[in-house]
């Protein structure tokens, strides 16, 4: 970095100051008149003196010498010529300012955060820039931001620097390095072997000043090239920090009212810390636990809560340490969802009635279609987008499985070879019939490939016959509160599912109700029809289940646990600054997002009810509401041990270079010269006053 001293004009102006003082001094000199007998001899003396009068006047003129000395000191102080510690050969500087969460740390003995200290250091560097120096300001947290491109305008740099603020984000320096790299190390335009080829831009070597606490991953896949790194470590390695690194809730799947909250607390300092962890729910005190954590260790906490409703929980550590943001954690319990289901049925009154009870209507909005709907584009789009929470196929089967959970009644899900088999046989059967046929065909198939394919698919395990129920998986949520042994089933078939299938209801013909996972979704298959058709095509009941009390209860369980109305897990937690995507029901058109204790965030739902929330910089519990009705919950937490580990790293690795921390003490030098200058000016003023009085 060049100083103003390199500018000859500055030297000329500087040199004119003492000359001006001397001139002013003599021009404004007040001379005391003295009467002498004759100036005859004096004039002779003066003539002699005139030969070297200026030097004589300067000689022994203490006042003038003091003034010149003062001005000299002032000039030296202003130019600060000894500030060589931060000088550099480059006239381009890239300021990389870490504004991640760990920079909020207020170190012991400091009154301001590391971020503020770093800003002050950068400001001092900006002030030292000469007119020919250029600088660029980049901030980095989990993403880089070019606050100010290369400029020699110090006021713009100052303004840009004043505008940056610390974030709650995690740290990733690579993006910022790449941004700086792009300017310092231009790539070749084309063939490196071609001697005529020229680079598109001259490389612009620059100093890379990294103001950080080093709390980021080692960057190895990066070549510094023309960048000359300098790491100015902010903060100290002697820190005190207690952090909550995990906090979540989980409902008991069997007893949804029972909620367990789990937290992990880690001590990133070296001393043992005793404190209290306080749990609040919806702002009300709920529980507290005393914790004692040895330095460098972590402990787990768990709280048992009982609530059926949605709730916002926060866990606070009653301990003041260097970094406050990780002393509080948030989580939420999501509400029962309002699910959207599609029922494709040729006609099933019990099903329709069961889905339209008062209780189910609160959590479900069901749409009914006939099987012919399966061939429409609307269905295909709907199935591919997966905008419904559950599709119930009553005695029918689609060509492809939809991107959502399914419930097949008296039919099997399609298989990979179903279409091939169907086309080979040239059958025009309905999908359900085709599916049934396929099972037979595949059973007969001797090819290994088909056998493997079949193994993954659903198939009938027995021919149609009367069914007697034998066993019920009561522990499964879908089977809760169900009493099924009084059922009469006139015709049903045992089913076999793909690997991972769970038998929910066993019968003498095999599994009659099974559930199996499929790419993150779940498929449930019932081995008998509720309403069957006779040869004439008339509907007739195949079971008396619809008349049983267990029928609506079963449907409610399906809605809750298969359609996902009751999510058994807690609200998801995201990192600060992360874009949160929430999927809402189609019914919600004007959602509102608010942070508890904060302001609301404007959002516009996208197609398919998806909602992207970007303003997630502040940790807290966020509520997605629809006309004051809670639609979803999520939490923003730091939960980053790297950020919470606030001890300053002494050496960072950038590219293939290890960069040791530089001492930023040059800028921290106290400006005593100001006081010295004021004292000197005061002395001169006093002396001038005394002198004037004496002469007068």
């Amino acid at each position, binding site marked *: 970095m060049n100083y103003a001293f390199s500018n000859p004009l500055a030297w000329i102006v500087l040199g004119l100051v003492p000359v001006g003082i001397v001139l002013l001094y003599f021009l404004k*000199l*007040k*001379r*005391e*008149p*003295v*009467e*002498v*007998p*004759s*100036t*005859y*001899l*004096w*004039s*002779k*003396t*003066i003539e*002699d*003196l005139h030969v070297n009068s200026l030097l*004589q*006047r300067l*000689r*022994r*003129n203490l006042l003038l010498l003091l003034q010149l000395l003062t001005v000299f000191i002032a000039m030296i102080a202003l130019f600060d010529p000894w500030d060589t510690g931060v000088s550099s050969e480059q006239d381009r500087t890239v300021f990389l300012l870490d504004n991640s969460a760990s920079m909020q740390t207020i170190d012991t003995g400091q009154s301001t955060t590391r971020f503020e200290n770093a800003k002050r250091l950068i400001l001092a560097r900006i002030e030292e820039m000469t007119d020919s120096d250029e600088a660029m300001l980049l901030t980095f947290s989990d993403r880089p931001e070019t606050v100010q491109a290369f400029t020699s305008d110090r006021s713009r740099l100052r303004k840009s620097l004043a505008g940056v603020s610390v974030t709650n984000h995690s740290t990733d320096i690579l993006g910022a390095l790449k941004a700086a790299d792009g300017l310092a190390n231009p790539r070749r335009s084309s063939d490196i072997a071609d001697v005529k080829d020229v680079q598109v831009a001259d490389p612009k070597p620059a100093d890379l000043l990294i103001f950080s606490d080093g709390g980021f991953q080692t960057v190895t896949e990066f070549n510094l090239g023309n960048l000359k790194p300098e790491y100015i470590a902010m903060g100290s390695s002697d820190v005190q920090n207690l952090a909550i690194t995990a906090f979540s809730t989980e409902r008991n799947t069997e007893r949804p009212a029972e909620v367990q909250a789990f937290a992990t607390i880690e001590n990133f300092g070296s001393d043992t810390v005793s404190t209290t962890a306080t749990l609040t729910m919806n702002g009300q005190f709920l529980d507290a636990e005393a914790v004692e954590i040895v330095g460098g260790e972590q402990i787990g906490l768990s709280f048992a809560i009982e609530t059926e409703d949605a709730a916002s929980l926060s866990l606070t550590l009653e301990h003041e340490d260097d970094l406050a943001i990780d002393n509080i954690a948030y989580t939420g319990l999501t509400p029962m969802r309002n699910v959207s289901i599609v029922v494709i049925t040729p006609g099933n009154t019990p099903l329709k009635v069961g889905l339209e009870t008062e209780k189910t209507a609160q959590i479900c909005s069901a749409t009914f279609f006939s099987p012919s709907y399966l061939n429409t584009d609307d269905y295909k789009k709907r199935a591919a987008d997966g905008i419904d929470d559950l599709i119930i196929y009553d005695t029918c089967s689609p060509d492809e499985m939809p991107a959502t959970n399914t419930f097949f009644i008296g039919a099997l899900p399609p298989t990979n070879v179903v279409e091939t088999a169907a086309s080979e046989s040239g059958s025009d059967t309905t999908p359900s019939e085709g599916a049934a046929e396929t099972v037979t065909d595949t059973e007969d198939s001797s090819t290994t490939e088909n056998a493997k394919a079949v193994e993954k698919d659903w198939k009938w395990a027995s021919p149609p016959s009367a069914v007697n129920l034998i066993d019920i998986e009561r522990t499964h949520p879908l089977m809760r509160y169900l009493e099924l042994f009084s059922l009469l089933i006139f015709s049903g078939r045992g089913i076999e599912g793909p690997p991972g299938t769970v038998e929910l209801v066993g019968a003498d013909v095999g599994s009659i109700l099974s559930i199996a996972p499929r790419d993150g979704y779940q498929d449930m298959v019932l081995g008998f029809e509720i309403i069957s058709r006779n040869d004439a095509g008339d509907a007739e009941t195949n079971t008396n289940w619809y008349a049983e009390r267990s029928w609506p209860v079963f449907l409610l369980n399906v809605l809750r646990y298969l359609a996902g109305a009751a999510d058994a897990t807690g609200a998801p937690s995201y990192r600060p600054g992360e874009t949160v995507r929430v999927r809402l029901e189609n019914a919600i058109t004007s959602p509102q997002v608010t942070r508890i204790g904060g302001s609301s965030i404007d959002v516009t739902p996208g197609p398919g009810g998806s909602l992207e929330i970007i303003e997630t910089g502040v940790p807290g519990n966020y509520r997605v509401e629809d006309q004051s009705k809670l639609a979803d919950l999520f939490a923003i937490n730091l939960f980053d041990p790297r950020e919470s580990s606030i001890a300053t790293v002494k050496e960072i690795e950038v590219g293939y270079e290890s960069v040791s921390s530089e001492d930023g003490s040059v800028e921290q030098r106290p400006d005593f010269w100001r006081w010295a200058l004021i004292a000197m000016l005061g002395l001169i003023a006093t002396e001038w006053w005394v002198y004037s009085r004496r*002469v007068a």
Partner: protein
Amino acid sequence: MSNREETQLLSPSLLGRLERMELVSRKVFRGRMKGERKSKRKGQSVEFHDFRNYVPGDDLRLIDWNLYARLDQLFLKLFQEEEDLHFYALIDASESMNFGSPTKLHVAKQLAAALGYVGLCRADRVSVQVLGPMGRHAPALRGRASLWKMLNYLDGIESGQNVSLYEGVKDFSLRNSGTGVAVLITDLMDKDGYESALRMLIGRRMDIFIMHVLSPEEIDPPIRGDRRLIDAEDGDSSEITLNNYALQKYKETVSSFIGSIKTFCAKRSITYLPVRTETPVETIVTKYLRERGVVR
């Protein structure tokens, strides 16, 4: 007033001592009247001077008859003629003389009075004059009784007779054609120079004494700092920053000035007598002037 001035100028003890002194002239001048001083002329004093042959027409009373008896030749016995001495004390009364404590003018008056009194006691013709128009009214005095006249005249001298040295001396020379002893009491601070004035006096074939009166303030000025020096005579001003260096230069100038006067005077048989005003006039006259052969 005259009594007061008299005691101011000459103390009784000094008067007593002055009565025993006489002015010394390195040249023997022809006086106008018979006095107490040897003359070039042979005359009727008691002091033998020479013999010469008688020529017809000589006064027979002067023939040495004793010699005629022994040698049988007529010789005239010649005696030294005693005449008076013309003593001129010229006082420079310019404004520059009104400086110092006592003022240079006062010292000049004292010296003039003392020397004049010596002359009066020895029956010399004493004329104490101030340079300038006032000098034209100066009385020519003779005899001890004229002391009061002389002192009265001196009392009447005020500073401010700002004529140049040359003009003053020229005026004096025109009015006084005779030879004699001229004591010029001055500070020689004339911007036109002192040389022409002294040459004028030399041209009159006078025995010239220069009493150069300087005050200690002039030799070693007590002033320091940034000053505007104002000339007491013509109001001319000069700006100067008086530090040790400048003062040193000034002293060198004064020394050089005095040296140049001494050289000038030595070349022209002028007796240069530096006088400092802080020295009592008694000491000057009875010791200093005597040592230098002005009086005896």
